[in-house]
């Protein structure tokens, strides 16, 4: 597996906030194109990229709006770049149509959402975790998406690299769902040497000129890519298309295409899902958490354990695809689920769905603007244990 280029990796012990760590992750991953639009609390990601990229090779452009940003990212990817855009809730909403285009064209790219309080303009400078469902369902139509949730600047660094790798593996846009706390929190970030960073290369076609079919697939259901300017002279469209890339307005073609777009992620969910488990086996109460809330929850879990509750922690590093298999596995064994999140119930709905009524799910909501008081989560855990 190829590794990162040394000139792009800021190896060493760094002291970075989540936004900046995300930029460094992108650079380490070989990202050489960012089109962005300023929006609090994500702006620092592109600011750092704009400062760093001219000396290491690549392009930053501040586009006229978020729609232009995501579209330019798609275009740049098809032109041969490794691309990323960065935004927060309002910009995320604007990007939705073209995230759908990215999914339809099967364009590998990374979209970073540094979540803030919503809805609408909400709390621009304060934390939220209320875009989780939007990440999955934001665009119209059926498609699947991969979304990652770091809980620290260190993880923001690593999961951004992971996002690029997943994007290339599955030929899909991948989201990195930071939140304002992680984005603006400064911590030690250890950046390894370039040769320790493995990068999944883009799946390029080896078809002869004139024989490339943009959406012809093998067993894994994922097509190979050709960039503009390589002489393949192919056509791709956001319309429902066949393996030639040409629009075909038929029920059969549409059925095949939509199933394939979804199945390539669904069938590989077990490979994509990343979880961190602590005391899950044999626990009474299982806390499902992600992002900044998982750090707050640590105090609550420790407190509950001191009170004698057998509480386990299932931390989601991937929000999507959802860890359905694991929840279905654990639902018969646990007494209850507790889901603390900085929203009015999003992941808790997924946990409920997968628990299938076998164990109650307690949501510990926080509308946004701050993190939970650990005592509230602890109380919910203890209540669930009774």
């Amino acid at each position, binding site marked *: 597996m190829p590794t990162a280029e040394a000139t792009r990796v800021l190896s060493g012990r760094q002291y970075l906030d989540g936004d900046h760590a995300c930029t460094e992750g992108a650079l380490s991953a070989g990202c050489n194109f960012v089109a962005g639009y300023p929006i609090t609390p994500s702006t620092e990601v592109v600011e750092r990229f704009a400062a760093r990229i001219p000396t290491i090779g690549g392009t930053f452009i501040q586009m006229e709006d978020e729609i232009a940003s995501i*579209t330019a990212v798609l275009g740049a990817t098809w032109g041969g770049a490794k691309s990323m855009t960065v935004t927060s809730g309002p910009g995320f909403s604007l990007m939705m149509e073209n995230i759908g285009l990215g999914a339809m064209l099967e364009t590998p790219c990374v979209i970073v959402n540094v979540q803030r309080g919503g809805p609408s303009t909400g709390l621009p400078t304060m934390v939220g975790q209320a875009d989780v469902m939007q990440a999955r369902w934001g665009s119209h139509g059926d498609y699947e998406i991969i979304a990652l949730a770091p809980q620290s600047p260190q993880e923001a660094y690593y999961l951004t690299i992971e996002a690029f790798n997943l994007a290339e593996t599955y030929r899909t846009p991948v989201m990195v769902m930071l939140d304002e706390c992680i984005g603006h929190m400064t911590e030690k970030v250890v950046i390894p040497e370039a040769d320790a960073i493995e990068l999944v290369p883009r799946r390029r076609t080896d078809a002869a000129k004139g024989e490339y079919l943009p959406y012809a697939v093998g067993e894994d259901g994922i097509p190979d890519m050709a960039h503009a300017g390589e002489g393949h002279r192919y*056509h791709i469209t956001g319309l429902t298309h066949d393996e030639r890339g040409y629009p075909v307005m038929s029920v059969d073609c549409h059925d095949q295409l939509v199933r394939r777009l979804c199945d390539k992620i669904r069938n590989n969910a077990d490979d994509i899902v990343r979880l961190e488990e602590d005391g899950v086996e044999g626990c009474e109460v299982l806390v499902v958490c992600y992002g900044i809330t998982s750090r707050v929850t640590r105090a609550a879990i420790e407190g509950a354990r001191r009170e004698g509750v057998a509480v386990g922690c299932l931390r989601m590093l991937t929000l999507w695809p959802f860890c359905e298999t694991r929840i279905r596995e654990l639902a018969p064994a646990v007494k209850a689920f507790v889901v603390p999140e900085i929203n009015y119930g999003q992941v808790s709905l997924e946990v409920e769905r997968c628990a299938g009524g076998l164990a109650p799910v307690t949501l510990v909501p926080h509308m946004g603007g701050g993190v939970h008081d650990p005592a509230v989560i602890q109380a919910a855990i203890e209540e669930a244990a009774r």
Partner: protein
Amino acid sequence: MTIRTDTTTQLEHPLAHLLRTERFPHIWCPTCGIGTVVKCFAEAIDRAEMDYDRMAIVSGIGCTGRVAGYMKLDSYHTTHGRAIPFATGLKLANRDLKVVVFSGDGDLSAIGGNHLIHAARRNMDIMVVCVNNFIYGMTGGQVAPTTPQPAITSTTPHGAFEPPFSLPHLLEACGAVYIARWTSLHVRRLTKSLTEALLKPGFSFVEAIAPCSTLYARRNRLGSGLDLMKYYHDSSEIEHGADTSDIAIDYQKNIKVGTFLDVERPTWHELSDRQHHATLGDRYYHAAQMPPADKEEASHA
């Protein structure tokens, strides 16, 4: 009355090498002018001796948006109004590409308006061919920002009343370096303008007025596309270098055509290189590929 199902000729069309003829006959209506503009564009590609492998065509949504699907080049059929930022991404990822946006008046100046003006402002090195039929054809004939008053459209059933854009005027104000307008009747001159635009670095804009027979002509009882072509013949007036503030198209009135603007300005890449080199010197990644300082001075002059 004979029904012929064979083709008269065994030869392929001379421009077939640039077209996805396996998808022909194309979807455009009888007497629609888009096909003519595509013909002129294909001809221009050969006249400009473009390297086919180095070209990329990006279209938006609409009748003209289907152009990308019929051209045998790396072609991208994107979302409504967003062809220009997609093209920007392509160009920024690969400076060697010649990127052409082929889209309609509604796609480019309504939903895509913001992207149009910014790409012009940046002098992004892309060429935009705007087929202006004064209407939203694909969706059944709604009013467009270019529809002249008082044309009947499906969303202005009592007559359009909003002042339309004069696209060359808009683009000149935004900073385009090449602006031309022709009708699909002016085949040779349109081909020439397209050839010039293909070879010109920076943001070029060619407006091709074309008939929409099924909707614009029919709804306004103007006949067929052929009748609109006759109107172009009778009412167009060639004035190269005309003042773009004076060339609005009123309903069934005079159409000023010509090459209105052809100037030199540094492209986005040139400006980016220059600025970064000035600030970063040899640390700038592309410093080695930049022209030496004296040549830069000359290009300023």
